C-alpha cells in the first residue's frame, strides 16, 4: 500500500493549485474580515432549520469569527473540519511561497496506489461522520 508525499514538476495541463491557493486564502480572509466588519450576516443553515440537525458546514461562520479574533481553540470547537482544512491550506500555501522564494519549481503532491486510495476514502468518510457527530453534540442551536 502506498500513501506518501512526493515532489514532481507540474504536468502539462494540470491545475496550478500553488498559484491559486495563496491568492484564494488571502482573498477569503479579507472577504471574511470585511463581512464581519460591516456586520453582514449569512442567512443561516436551511438544513438545520428543516431537521434541527447541523450540516457539515454549521459553525463555520462562528469558527471564522473566532479565528479572526485569534481564538483558535474556540474555532476548532465550532467546526473542526473548517479549521483543519484552513490550517492545511495555510501550511501548503506557506510551503509554496517558501518554494517560490528558493526558486524551487517542483510541486508537493500526494501519491497513492488503489489500496491507499481506498484507505484514504474510508478514512475521509469516517472522519466526516465523527466531525458531524461532534457538531451535533456540541453546537448550540
Amino acid at each position, binding site marked *: 500500500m*502506498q500513501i506518501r508525499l*512526493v515532489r*514532481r*514538476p507540474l*504536468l*502539462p*495541463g*494540470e*491545475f*496550478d493549485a500553488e*498559484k*491559486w491557493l495563496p491568492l*484564494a486564502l488571502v482573498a*477569503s480572509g479579507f472577504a471574511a474580515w470585511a463581512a464581519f466588519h460591516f456586520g453582514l450576516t*449569512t442567512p443561516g*443553515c*436551511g*438544513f438545520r*432549520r*428543516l431537521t434541527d440537525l447541523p*450540516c*457539515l*458546514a454549521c459553525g463555520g461562520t462562528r469558527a471564522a469569527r473566532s479565528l479572526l479574533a485569534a481564538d483558535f481553540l474556540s474555532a476548532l470547537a465550532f467546526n473542526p473540519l473548517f479549521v483543519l482544512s484552513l490550517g492545511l491550506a495555510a501550511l501548503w500555501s506557506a510551503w509554496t511561497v517558501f518554494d517560490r522564494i528558493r526558486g524551487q519549481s517542483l510541486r508537493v*503532491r500526494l*501519491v*497513492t*496506489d488503489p489500496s491507499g486510495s481506498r484507505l484514504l476514502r474510508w478514512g475521509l468518510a469516517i472522519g466526516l461522520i465523527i466531525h458531524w457527530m461532534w457538531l451535533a453534540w456540541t453546537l448550540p442551536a
Partner: protein
Amino acid sequence: MEIHLARDGSSLGVFTEAEVREGLAGGRFRASDLAWRQGMPAWTPLAGWPEFAGLAAPALLADAPSAPVLPAWERGAGFRNFFGTLHDVILNPVATFDALPRGNFGKVVGFQYAAALPAWLCASVLWALFFAFLGALGSGELSQIEGMEALGQLGPAVFAGILCVILGCAVVLLPLFNVVGAALQHVILLPWGPAGGFGQTYRVVGYVQGAFLPFSFIPCLNYLAGPWSLVISIIALSRVHRLAWWKVLISLLLLVCCALALVLVALALAGSLPSPD
C-alpha cells in the same frame, strides 16, 4: 530510481524501472504516457526514454489513443458525459479550456438545459417542502416578514407552483442571460486583446455556469460553489483567450464593481423616491 508516470493530465503513481518495463510489456502503460524522474527538466513520453526503447515500439505509439475531446459533453449528450463535463470543468479546467473546440453553440445550450432543468425542479420542491415543514405557509407566519404578506396566505402547493413558474422562466431565458453575461465579460476583456472571439467567451460562460448550476441549489454547498466558479471563470477565460490570469481577474473585478455600483445607485435612487404613503 523511482519514475513518476502520468496520462491525460492525471498522475498514475510512482513506479520502479522494473515495474515500468513490465507495465509497458503487459500493456498497463503506454509509450505515450508521460514520465519523469529526479534530475530531469520536464515530463517526457516513455517512447523517448532510451531505457524503454525496445518496449516502446512504434506500434505501441500508433495504438495510443489521441487526446480526448474536452469537455465530455462535446463528445455527445448523455448521462455519463454530463457528469464527465462537471468533472472536466470544475476539477480539470486548464486541460478542458485549452482544448475547448470552436463553434456549435447548440451543445452549450443543451448542456445548460441539462444542468438547469433538474436543478430547477429540485429547488422548487425543496423550497416548497422547506416552507411547508416550517409551517410558514397557510398559518400566516410568513406574513410577519416584511414584504411577504401575500406569500404567507398561500398553501405549499400554490407556492411551489408560483416558484416553478418563476424559476422555469429563468431557466428558459438562461441562454439569453448568458449572452448578456458573455457580452459584458467579452467587452471588458477587449482592452487586453483576447485571442478568441465572442463565441469562445459565450462557450466558456455557458459551460462554467452550467457546471455550477446544480451546486448552486444545494444548501451550504452554494457558499463554496460561488467563489470556486469565479476561480474557474478566470482560469477558463485566461486559457481560451491566451491572457494572463491577473488581467482576467482585474477585468472580472471591474465588472463586479460596476454591477455593485449600479445596485448602490439604484438603491440610493429608490431611497430618495417619495413614499407612496
